[in-house]
């Protein structure tokens, strides 16, 4: 039996009150709920405050480069289908620096869970605009306000028929843990975009700001298998921000296209020199 204590407390470098704590706790709760022990999981991340999460949870970890968490997670998940691979990174990391990988990853549909700590700002580099910053937000780097149209990761994911797309909020721990648990269960790529207050730099999207706007989708209110309804819902981000599973379908995961992965991790599989000999002979 996996217990919360298996994931005990680790000292972090996050600011007191940061939304990352809520996400970390919700993730641990979901892992325990699914019976996943530290050895069973691999946390992969890029760079940023959010991307430090793998250091703050006992687990296997690959803390890679800014924006490149998803490709690294993809490789690991393909090499070892038995590992529960979870990507945890920020909005700048996943949607900005890693934008092309995000698009490629959504289309590829590798079986892994992608948790994006979406604080609508760059935390680690001290408060510049991120791809999800709202238009008009002022920062030192955007003194006249952000001119760019905010990226809508949820809408993009739904538009590409990603198998599991959800939005959570770091201030709603129970609810978020439930979403993460569902994401962990999903076969294929699961995206949970998580609203995460950055108490140090994002003075616009505060706990209060989010709290006034988020609403949990009620049972029966939305059918996540209805793609058109999901598209519509994914554009709801303003005075009202829906939390919950926005879209769900059952596409074959990328791993399923490789019969060799049914036999477990690639590391254990060795090389069939008999077959290789035949291959070499075919060049004669």
């Amino acid at each position, binding site marked *: 039996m996996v217990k919360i204590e298996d994931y005990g407390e680790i000292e972090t470098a996050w600011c007191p009150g940061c939304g990352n704590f809520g996400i970390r706790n919700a993730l641990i709760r979901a892992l325990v709920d699914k019976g996943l022990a530290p050895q069973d999981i691999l946390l992969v991340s890029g760079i940023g405050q959010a991307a430090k999460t793998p250091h703050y949870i006992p687990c296997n*970890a690959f803390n*890679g480069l800014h924006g490149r968490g998803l490709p*690294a997670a993809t*490789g690991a998940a393909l*090499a070892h289908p038995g590992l529960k691979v979870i990507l945890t990174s920020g909005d700048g990391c996943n949607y900005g620096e890693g934008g092309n990988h995000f698009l490629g990853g959504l289309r590829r549909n590798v079986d892994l869970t992608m948790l994006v700590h979406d604080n609508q700002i760059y935390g680690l580099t001290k408060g510049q605009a991120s791809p999800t910053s709202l238009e008009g937000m002022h920062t030192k780097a955007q003194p006249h306000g952000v001119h760019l149209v905010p990226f809508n990761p949820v809408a993009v994911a739904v538009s590409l028929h990603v198998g599991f797309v959800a939005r959570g909020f770091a201030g709603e721990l129970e609810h978020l843990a439930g979403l993460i648990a569902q994401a962990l269960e999903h076969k294929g790529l699961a995206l949970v975009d998580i609203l995460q207050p950055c108490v140090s730099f994002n003075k616009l999207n505060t706990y209060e700001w989010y709290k006034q706007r988020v609403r949990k989708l009620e049972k029966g209110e939305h059918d996540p298998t209805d793609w058109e309804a999901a598209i519509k819902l994914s554009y709801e981000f303003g005075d009202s921000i829906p939390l919950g599973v926005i879209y769900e379908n059952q596409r074959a995961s990328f791993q399923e296209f490789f019969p*060799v992965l049914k036999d477990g*991790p690639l590391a254990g599989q060795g090389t069939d020199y008999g077959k290789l000999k035949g291959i070499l002979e075919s*060049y004669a």
Partner: protein
Amino acid sequence: MSRDSLNIMIGGEAGQGLVTIGQVLSKCLIKSGYHILVTQDYMSRVRGGHNTFTIRAAARELDSPTEGVDLLVALNQETLDLHGKELNSGAVVVAGQDLTCAGARCLGVPYKELAEGRHVNTIALGVTAGLLGLDQELVADTLTTALGKKKDDKVVAANREGLAASFDWLAKQEADCGVLPKPQEAPPRMMLGGNQAIALGALAAGLKFLAFYPMTPSTSIALTIIAHADELGVVYEQAEDEIAAINMALGASYAGAPALVCTSGGGYALMTEGLSLAGMTETPIVIAIAMRPGPATGLPTRTEQGDLLFALHGGHGEFPRAILAPGDVKQCFEAGYRALHLAEKYQGPVFILTDQFLADSLRALEPFGLEGREAVRPGGQGKEGADYRRYEITPDGISPRRLPGMGPELVVADSDEHTQQGHITEDLELRVRMQHKRMLKEKGLKAETIPPSFAGPEEPETLLVSWGSSQGPVAAAARRLRDEGQSVGTCHFSQVWPLDPEQFAPRMARAGSVVVIEGNATGQFAGLLKKEAGIIAQRFIGRFDGLNLTPEYILRQLAN
């Protein structure tokens, strides 16, 4: 007339099927016991333009292409206009009746009449094969296999008829392009290009993961691996870009799959960020770079050895690496095999540097033995158990490598400077120890460096030094000079990093003068020899017009 070797050039537009003709002829020559060496020159376009496929054939082993054409198969007028002046004395031209080949012994083939709606390139193949004295049945069977057809196919029947018609037509002509002496013996040989050999060598070492983004001239490495991936249980993916490719490969390698990425200069430029990650996380990875001329997009389909220093210095920060530079197709296989083993042992990046010339150069090879070969076994190194530390500081710098999810150990890898457990640290004293530990691996790599191979007199008046694909042309040039009575030796490096001066500096010092020959404008390797071993080359001969080095080119430069 009998010749020691024949140079057969097929020229035409892309899309005219000249590669098929060339490959079938090459295969037939090999099956008849000959050695071949192919050079391909093509433009960066899918149709049109001017391309050539040149086969040098001989009954003896060949190490280098040569200039001058003995048999020119012209599929269009442009081929005649461009290459007419390269014909050797006694050369024969095979061309359509409608083309003008002034001054040469020209076989005007009535393609329309012979083809009767069949493919013209089958007729060209038939006439050429006939001229070379190849067996008609052998040509027909090889063509059938090359087309991937079944013997009872309609297309196959049409091709057989086309070949028969062209052999019959040729028999009525008086044509002779100079016959090669019959080979003494014909052991079974394979036909392989450099890129195919790299791929097969990597597969022999237990490659399990490939990620790539297409870029000429590296793509055929990926395509060869993918062709055998299902059979050998290799997972592969065409990534969204080179950055993704190398990061995917690193993720896979971390999780235990021996991994390779392949690209050319521009793609490698994007990979350098991931290369540095491999250095910091100490993750095994093989990076195969098939060089082409730069800077930037350069000459996409041509050859150069211009990225040596970039391979050596790519990536931010300092970390050890090894760079293999195979000189021929056989060495490509060994490099593919060795690179994976080195990467695993030293837990970091290992390069294979090849170039378009070697990548596309088909050659006849005796089958590689697989006896004694072993697949890389990741994750077996060092201590296990609960107190496992991924980056434990050890006397040789090699830390215990375990795989995530394969045992009780938690495996933590980090791009930030880290503790022995793998966690982020800003302990600057530890930083020094960690950097020292990583750099220690260079010592081990150096001890395993493949020594350069010397040939010719011990103390030659002139020593010709080369690396990578220049090996053959330089060896051939040296042979010709020795035949003229000159004292010329050669020294070839099939590994260019790390360099161990003890392996070569004393012998180089005994040469009258050292001439470094490489396919670039600045003498990159010459500079490296100077920096690493204090060897100052008296001369540097570079080629950077996009074409491969030839013995003739080298001799012309030496004579200048």
